[in-house]
């Protein structure tokens, strides 16, 4: 199977999930809080005349484990749904193959479980 991962801004998490389900039928995602540093180099912030700088902005890291043929449609759904129209910070998305994908409850391959 394929693992499709994406870094998105946090308020797009649910939009992205919905887009994936609507466009590909895939259900199942794991979400992790992340902070990112990219071309958009963070923010500054002031307090009592002092500057606070942070090189990080809040993001979320999404993992979808999907059947091989879904990797591209899922990627497309993510990229479209993650776009906010802002000038930067929308994140990135990539895929990689994974093996031995097992469903913990049943101990069977996830692919089989999903078909059922």
């Amino acid at each position, binding site marked *: 199977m394929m693992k499709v991962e994406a870094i998105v*801004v946090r308020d797009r998490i649910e939009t992205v999930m919905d887009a994936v389900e609507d466009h590909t039928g895939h259900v199942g995602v794991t979400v992790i809080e992340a*902070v990112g540093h990219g071309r958009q180099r*963070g*923010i*500054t*912030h*002031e*307090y*009592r005349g002092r*500057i*606070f*700088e*942070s*090189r*990080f*902005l*809040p993001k979320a890291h999404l993992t979808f484990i999907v059947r091989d043929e879904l990797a591209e449609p899922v990627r497309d759904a993510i990229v479209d749904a993650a776009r*906010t129209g*802002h*000038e*930067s*910070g929308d994140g990135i998305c990539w895929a990689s193959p994974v093996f031995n994908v097992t469903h913990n409850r049943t101990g069977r391959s996830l692919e089989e479980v999903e078909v059922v």
Partner: protein
Amino acid sequence: MTNKDLVIAASTIWVVVAAILVMFMQAGFAFLEAGLTRMKNVGHIAAKNVLVLAIASIVYYLVGYGIAFGDGGNGLVGGSGFFPDVDDLLAIGTAPFSWFSTIPAGAGYLFQVVFAAVSLAIVWGAMAERTKLWVYFAFGIVFTLIYSVVSHWIWSPDGWLFSKGMQDFAGSTVVHYQGALAALAGALLLGPRIGKFGADGKPNAIPGHNMAFTTLGVLILWFGWFGFNPGSTLGVISGDKLGYFAYVALTTNVAAAAGALGGLTVSWLVIKKPDLSMTLNGVIAALVAITAASGFVAPWAAIVIGLVAGAIAVLGVLAIERARVDDPIGAVAVHGMAGVWGTLATGIFAVPALAENLATGKGGLWYTGSFDQLGTQALGLVAVGAFTFSASFGALWLMKVTFGIRVDAEVEQAGLDVSEHGMWGYPEFYIPVPGGYGTDSHGHVGVAHAPRSAPPAAVTAATALEPTT
């Protein structure tokens, strides 16, 4: 010292202590409200009560006290005692505040100003989490004036409602109902917080962030209310009743207790859970309701008043929400509806002998079968309702159309703490503070928070101008 002087000394102790207790209610409101709102606004919400007290203290000293209690006015407004000087304030029972004859005029200021500040504190409850900072100042001044006028009507011996015998022992109408009317005007003009109502109009729950804070707030308010109601005896003897304030404290206490039980029970019945915020609001509603009645009613009636008020807290909050008004704290229900109930309940349950002893109005419907007192109470509610609501609505409307009273969406989303004041109330949960939570080997990776592409004007203005090195 003569015995007369000793009575004044004792009365002054009591009234000053009571005033101090009432002053502390600002901490109660600060924590009640901070607990019932969100983390991102916690500093703003809490510290605002310090501003409330500051504004009321200055404005009431300058003009409010004279409007409310200055000698030589008419039925609508007082006529002297503005900017009172040392001698004015040390005087006892003479001009310009001759109404205060059991305590020095300075003690009168102290006791009255903290009431004005409570009324003002109520206003912001329904306007929480979305009001511009300048409005606190502008409307704070306006409202203190409105308040002073109405308190003249009901509590000054020259006031027109006073002459009609309206019974409002410690201010269900003067303090709470008025505050709630302005709060309602504000909530209507502001509109609901982002996310409070879905696209379909269904309300979303926005639970408060800290029930411990809310509990602290309620217990401080209960504590302070022992100054609020019993202090309104203004002395150690009331008519011929010695230490009457102790009795007033008793009715206050049993009503508050009944309010907790009423709120808890009704929330259990109606929303199927013994909701904590509603139970706590039940206490406040009961205290609001017993405020008018506390000097006039029997203990059993106090319990009834409290129970009903507890129910009002729950049903009122739900009704206000159903009417699509977003009142984060429940101020309209808890201070407004319960204030109306308390004012009317006094007209129902006032014990004739107690009314007579206080020389204010007469016995209530229950005892006398007469609607007289109830009518007076209703008249007062209508008059105050019309005046205070329209004046508040008018003033806030003017502010809305001129400079605007609601913060930008980005500011509201980011929270008022960082947007309006430049720093979160709980910074370590939001940004990496040197040596703080989330840095070094501590609990979490701190992240700098800020609206991404469209930072609130206030934030960028400050940051953009400064070199960052």
